[in-house]
């Protein structure tokens, strides 16, 4: 059985304190509930969560969606946004955890990556060094989400063509973002169009996609 590894990189820098991180926690748990109610996702999805602020942390190692227990995400008072370090950790984890095909065994599906930040990388040089490393890992989709008015789009656009923006960082927009993540993850099991290539489902109304 091929697994579908899903990596979530979540900004936990100081600016996420308060309502934003609370909304992320709520959104995440709603997402996990939704994925567990989808028999296709339940069988295939493995989830990993990496948080980044002054350091990158593997909050949840790659775990079958049925077995995930979600730790509450905490945020320091202030501090930088080391997204570069997070990508570095991501690459290490992908190399360690994702099963590659061999002549003997089917490997995992190409992993999905969702990055959410409300600012911009403080370690820009490292971030830029890591982008090619991420690209050769051959993700199925990379989606970057710029949450709130202070999130900068250009650095995210270097990482992926699919950048979505959330105008506000309140709970309803986060909820719709995570709902979209679950829909994207479950998308592999739904009908495929004759003309449209297999891709992401349309984002919900609250999100704008920047290409």
């Amino acid at each position, binding site marked *: *059985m091929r697994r579908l590894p899903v990596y979530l990189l979540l900004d936990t820098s100081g600016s996420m304190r308060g309502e934003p991180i609370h909304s992320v926690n709520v959104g995440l748990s709603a997402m996990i509930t939704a994925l567990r109610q989808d028999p296709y996702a339940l069988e295939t999805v493995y989830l990993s969560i990496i948080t980044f602020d002054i350091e990158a942390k593997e909050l949840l190692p790659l775990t079958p969606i049925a077995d995930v227990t979600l730790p509450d995400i905490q945020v320091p008072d202030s501090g930088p946004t080391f997204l570069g370090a997070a990508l570095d950790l991501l690459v290490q984890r992908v190399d360690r955890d994702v099963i*590659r095909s061999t002549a003997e065994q089917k490997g995992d599906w190409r992993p999905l990556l969702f990055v959410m930040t409300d600012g911009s990388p403080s370690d820009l040089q490292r971030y830029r060094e890591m982008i090619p490393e991420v690209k050769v890992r051959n993700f199925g989709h990379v989606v970057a989400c710029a949450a709130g008015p202070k999130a900068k789009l250009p650095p995210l656009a270097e990482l992926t063509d699919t950048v979505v923006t959330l105008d506000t960082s309140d709970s309803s927009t986060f909820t719709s973002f995570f709902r979209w993540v679950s829909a994207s993850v479950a998308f592999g099991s739904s009908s495929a169009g*004759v003309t449209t290539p297999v891709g992401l489902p349309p984002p919900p109304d609250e999100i704008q996609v920047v290409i």
Partner: protein
Amino acid sequence: MANIVKLKALDGRTVEFVDTIIGQGAMKDVYCSPDKSYVVAFFRTKQNAQSRDRLSNIVGTYREKLFNQQGGDYWKNLFCWPDSIVEWNGLLGIVMPAYQGHYFFQHGSKNGDNFGIKGNEKEGKWFASAKNRSRYLDPRELGSWQSYLTIGIKIARAVKRLHAAGLAHSDLSYKNVLVDPVGSNACIIDIDTLVVPQRYPPDVVGTPDFIAPEVVMTNHLNKEDPKRHLPSIATDRHALSVLIYMYLLYRHPLRGDKVHDVSDTQRDETLSMGERALFVEHPTDDSNRIRVKHLEASELPWKDTKKVPYTITGPYLVPLFNRAFIEGLHDPAKRPSADEWEQALVKTVDLLQPCQNADCEQKWYVFDNSIAPKCPFCGTSYQGRLPVLNLYSARKQGSYIPDNHRLMVYTNQSLFPWHINRNIFPNERLAPKDQKRGGYFVFHKDSWWLVNERMPDLADMTAGSPIKCPPGGKVELKDNQKLLLSKEEGGRVVVVQMVAGASGQPSLIGNIQSGLQKMLHRT
């Protein structure tokens, strides 16, 4: 409380719905009527003229052809068919009956519904996966193996009806077929993707796991390219075969461990579902077998094709699986039709034997034509003598030939008109008078008895001259006994074989096997 939107449908009917999305499909957003008796599904994108025309035919001509005939009501349980078109805020919507209550989980997942799926739709994938069944679903939701045969019959019958009308569903999958194993129900949904050959081309290619190999192989070509294969009745047949295989064996017929491209999983997937698709149980090419060492405990024994081979589905279904996944996998013309599936599944019901192990999860299994029948699921052997009836019918006066049809006997098994007469078939056209049984079987004081309720002609012909057994009487079943069930045209004679069971004498092996050989060779 959300607003209630009131609209006039294109056919003039008043349609109301609560302005809150209750569900989202790949193409549509779904709203519910205030009384919850119907739903309205709006396409998220604008529909072109052709699509509108197709939809108006689906709610109009095609629907009327199906439902406004004698026996049309039968189909209302098998299809969730759209009946009106509405427009709202520039979007086109279709009105459909709400799903019946038994298509929503009553118990949900294990441990007091820890995943919170109680009240959700019973999407087929829950039941077609060994892991979801054993690890997550509440056992009260699972039904018995008999339920899945019945579900298969209903799906095959519904697809047969569509095909008979020249329509292809084009996206049969466990997402678009609701199943209720508890009550043995099935219903085809998402009718709006219907394809009419030469008239309305498909706009979806199908759902992964169910797309026919020729469609996968040519998916990269332009829609207008003559080499491109699009969904059709032939690809529906592939999807139907996959559905039946998955509901009976809880695994996918093509998802084995053969790797076609080690560096690119997407290409590997395309090859293994398309150009190089290979049956996991192919008799001579074992390269795509499911490797047991890669499996989780929760997937066993189902994914171990040695422990639960497809041959446990019995002599009527095995030839169809062979045609679907061996001969016809890359040769669409050889695939079995929905009608053939329906007939074979109906006959297989007659081969079912209840498992004598009260804790057996599957409860029923197909008699394996052996002298020592054994449940393939839990391994429990049959104890005691087991009568098997072989059905014969006359093509010309007095000369009876085998019908390749057997009926297993167990307590409270019924003898129905379609057993008594070869011209009667248990399908949607079955007359009410033919739905009543003619007799039943019972094990009493160490003997098997056939109790006659309404077979005026029943007679034991073993000795040459008939010994009559009128309604109200009973006849003891004996080995090699010949019973005349009916003198009417198409009326049958049954020959009784008494299988010894685990503790008895293996006296009949040759007899049964040669009888079976003859049956299998009849076409």
